């Protein structure tokens, strides 16, 4: 019995070692109009995990004093919690752990096929890698991406994937706010032990993306109502509209 265990453990060791040889780490620099942050993609075989660094921004100029000596205090900190996107390169579903201020949401998202258009003549050298341009319309935004065939893995930042090579740069080109991801660092083999397995209880707690979006939209609407209801006397509110400003603007079920 002891012998068998030993054999198994040796076997396991070899196996993990072999797998880590192909474990890839890609760091992306994420940027929008308000902040930038580092985000990390780990790929092992067909499983992926995409996470962002926790971000705590400090706004240094948050206290002002007006001529009457009154203090005006603005928001000093922007904080962003770690979000994890678990994916599989062989299908189009993502399992997302989305912590918010009060509650952590477990969200299942299944995208359709990403309808990439490759522009073989448009190439760009990013670092030492020759990249090819590809364009995409995804959930209400147009994107320009550059991928390299020299790293043959159909992965990329956030939910972007399914190009014949790693996406090294992608930027939105339409809609309010601009989002971009650009590669900062690639490590292969990436030898750290990373747990790419979805937490066990995920599926019990999971809601669909549609449900999640419904919750968030409702939350924003109620926040705006608070502001409307706090408008000063004799100011009229003519209309209130909620416009999404996130990466995703329109969802499949809304079309």
């Amino acid at each position, binding site marked *: 019995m002891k012998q068998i265990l030993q054999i198994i453990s040796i076997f396991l060791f070899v196996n993990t070692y072999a797998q880590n040889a192909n474990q890839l780490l890609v760091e992306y620099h994420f940027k929008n109009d308000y902040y930038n942050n580092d985000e990390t993609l780990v790929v092992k075989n*067909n499983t992926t995990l995409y996470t962002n660094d926790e971000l705590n921004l400090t706004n240094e100029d948050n206290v002002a004093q007006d001529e009457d000596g009154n203090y005006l205090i603005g928001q000093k900190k922007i904080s962003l919690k770690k979000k994890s996107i678990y994916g599989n390169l062989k299908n189009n579903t993502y399992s997302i752990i989305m912590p918010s201020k009060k509650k952590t949401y477990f969200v299942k998202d299944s995208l359709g096929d990403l309808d990439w258009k490759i522009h073989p003549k448009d190439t760009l050298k990013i670092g030492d890698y020759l990249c090819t341009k590809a364009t995409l319309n995804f959930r209400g935004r147009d994107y320009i991406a550059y991928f390299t065939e020299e790293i043959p893995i159909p992965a990329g930042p956030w939910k972007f994937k399914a190009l014949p090579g790693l996406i090294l740069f992608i930027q939105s080109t339409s809609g309010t706010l601009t989002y971009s991801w650009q590669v*900062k660092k690639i490590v292969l083999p990436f030898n750290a032990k990373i747990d790419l397995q979805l937490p066990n209880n995920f599926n019990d707690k999971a809601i669909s993306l549609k449900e999640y979006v419904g919750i968030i939209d409702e939350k924003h609407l109620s926040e*705006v109502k*608070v502001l409307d209801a706090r408008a000063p006397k004799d100011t009229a509110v003519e209309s*209130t509209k909620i416009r999404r400003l996130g990466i995703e603007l329109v969802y499949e079920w809304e079309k």
Partner: protein
Amino acid sequence: MGKIAFTLLLLISTISSAQIKLVGTISSKSTLETPVTVKVKDSLNESIIAYTFTDHNNKYKLTIDKIGKFNLVFTALGFEKKIIPITITKEQTELNTNVLLVEKSMRLDEVVIQAEKAIKVNNDTIVFKSKFFKVGTEETVEDLLKNIPGLQIDNEGTIKVGNQEIEKLMIDGDDFFKKGYKVLSKNMPAYTIEEIEILKNFSNNSLLKGIEESKKVALNLKVADKYKRVWFGNLEAGLGNNNFYEFRGNLMNFGKKNKFYFLTNLNNIGYDSTGDLQQLISPTGNSDATKIGNNQEAKQLLNLSPSTANFNQNRTNINNAELASLNAIFNPTKKLKVKTLGFFNWDELDFFKNNVNVIETEGTSFTNIENYKLKNQKSIAFAKLELIYNSSKTSLLEATTKYNNARFNDGSNLQFNATSTIQDLKHSKTLFDQKISYTQQLKNKKAIVLTGRFIDEKAPQNYSINRFFYQDLFPENRDASSVAQSSENQMQFAGINLNFLNRKKSNDLLVIQLGNEYRKDVLRSTFSLLKDNDVVAQPKAYQNDLTYLVNDLYFKGKYRLEYNDIGVTGKFATHQLFNKLENKQFSSTQNPFFINPSIGLDWKINDKNKVATAYSYNTTNAKILDVYSNFVLTGFRSFESGSSNFNQLDASRFNLNYQLGNWTDKFFAHSHLVYIKNHNFLSSNTLINQNFTQSEKILIKGREYFNVNSSLDYYLNLISSNIKLDISYSKSDFKNVVNNSNLREVVSKNYNYGIALRSGYDGIFNYHIGTKWTTTAIRTTIANSFTDNMSFLNLSFVFSTKFNIQLQSERYYFGNLTTNNTYYFLDFNARYKLIKNKLSLGISGNNLFNTKTFRSYSVSDIGSSTTEYRLLPRFLLLKVNYRF
């Protein structure tokens, strides 16, 4: 069924005859879990024609519709690339290629990327290419700005970046409007704009950007070359019953080198259009390093302007205003900018009020009844020339010249205790103001600013009353029948200021100022008693001829330190004054020296709790109206005099601000507390007589003022409405002398409490309802107090984006009036947008209940007073707004 499917399949495959299916299975010696990319590439230029990935069973399927020679390329991370040349002919329908991949480890290094972007962010400037943000329906700049991330435009057109209103909206770096930018954003067509820049931490002086403390934001619009020199603007005309009318027009043109803006406003509906101009005349930006001489003006002794206390002036001012303004900016060379501004304003104002003053104090008690009819005429001509010269990238020279000439002709027909009295006041103001400033940017975020300013202002007044009420004051001249006073107030200011700013590496800011300010005031007043237009006497104690010179040599410093969530700001100002008082008989001097320190602390305890507090000790030097020695007439029954001495007044001030929650939270509250202790201050010694009061300033120790106000907001989900509570309390305590009494204490207290409820419905209808009580109590030897109440109900109906109606109603209640103590007002406004952003029609109704008069009640330390105002009658105005 199966047959049909089969036939269909056959049919499809024959139609798309050029299509070929590439299929296969991929295997390797080890387990192949990673997806394999399968690409069809052109055999010559290597470009990708089609690609796919293997499925869970490591199979692939790919369709292409081309024929010829290709390479089938198999790649996977950790495996060697495999290329298999294939030839596809017309006849083929399927090609099966199975491959075996061989493992090959790969090592990768860091990469760096640089790419082009649609939005550029350079430090504090965010540039938006407007083509990316145009939806297609936007007409005006305001519509376009609504699409820009981070910008919020409210219904009034106020533009905010986050929660902060912008400082100005510039066109190609030039600005006409300062905070009056709505004229521009609501009229300029959107298609002309190429780029929008958000300028954060904006400094009016571009060379101080990133050095001086600035929380300001501004917008700059870049006009596309081909749309420069387009004329645009708007016209708004309103016509109502009883000849009520309103006309506004704005016209502008922004060329490459020259920019023009014309503005006009004519109305008789009580609207004071000079408010629109204030931003053009004296631009804000008091925190600027070039601030010097900003509050220097010649003080006037008298005015007959209408006063309406806490009431909407639009309801009482019966006016007829005409205003025209012409503005231009020229850029003759890249380094030089010339700005000119000129306007002319003419206004005639009628105002009616009846006063009943009940005086009950120290050994006297009487009632005065005054019926006022006031007619004010004014004409103002103003011109400003600004030169801005950028001699190099690090130096800037600015010169501003202002000239203002204002003439006022005020007359009042007064029934004073049933005696008909005519007051006549002719006065003028002539101002010349020259300012030059030079900014030099030094290395390592340091800068110096040298500013010089010269102001000359004259404000002569000629005042006459066709009655003589002062027999008790001038017993020798009991037979006089009228009085007159002519006065001359002149002010000259010259100042120079050197400002040194140093933004440290730690981001702490050090500001040091060294300067000298000189001010000369001349006060000459001649008071005459007349009989049949002949001067019978000029009592000596009622004539002034005084020159007051103040030279202030100062050195100021400011430093701000930050540590985690705590910030400390320390300031000091050292003043060496040289004061001189001169009149014909004597001349005296005084050279006081003092330091004004202050310290402030702000602390963000956590996300929900924020505290800021400050303490300062301040010494101020007396002004001309504090130091003159003989009496002047300041109203038809009041004489005043200064303290005839130099004075420096000391005060301590403490304030505390506490905020709980954030503005967007369901619950939000904040409190503000101020305590001011005047260690010494100028009070008054007043002689009260039914026909006149005579008051002189006296120096007293100890005045206290305390104020605390709190507001609390809570949003109730259940009714989608916000409930707001306001509570404030203030108390002031000082001493004065009335009718040769001993020093008597005057304590006044003020309580305000209000509650309001406002809905946040997203449907057609919304409401805002509230009520507020104000209690004022004054205690001297006797006590007076009263409580007033004001309530309002506003209803809003937004039927569509084209049509909306707003109703506003108010109720005033005066607790101490026994009759006519309740007043109701109803106004409405309806707007219909006929052509979006082009033509809209509107109708507004004011004072629909046609309330003719309005009475209010007030108390003071010597009695109480009831005032009745005559109001603008009910009127309806039909409006057309056309944008071109």
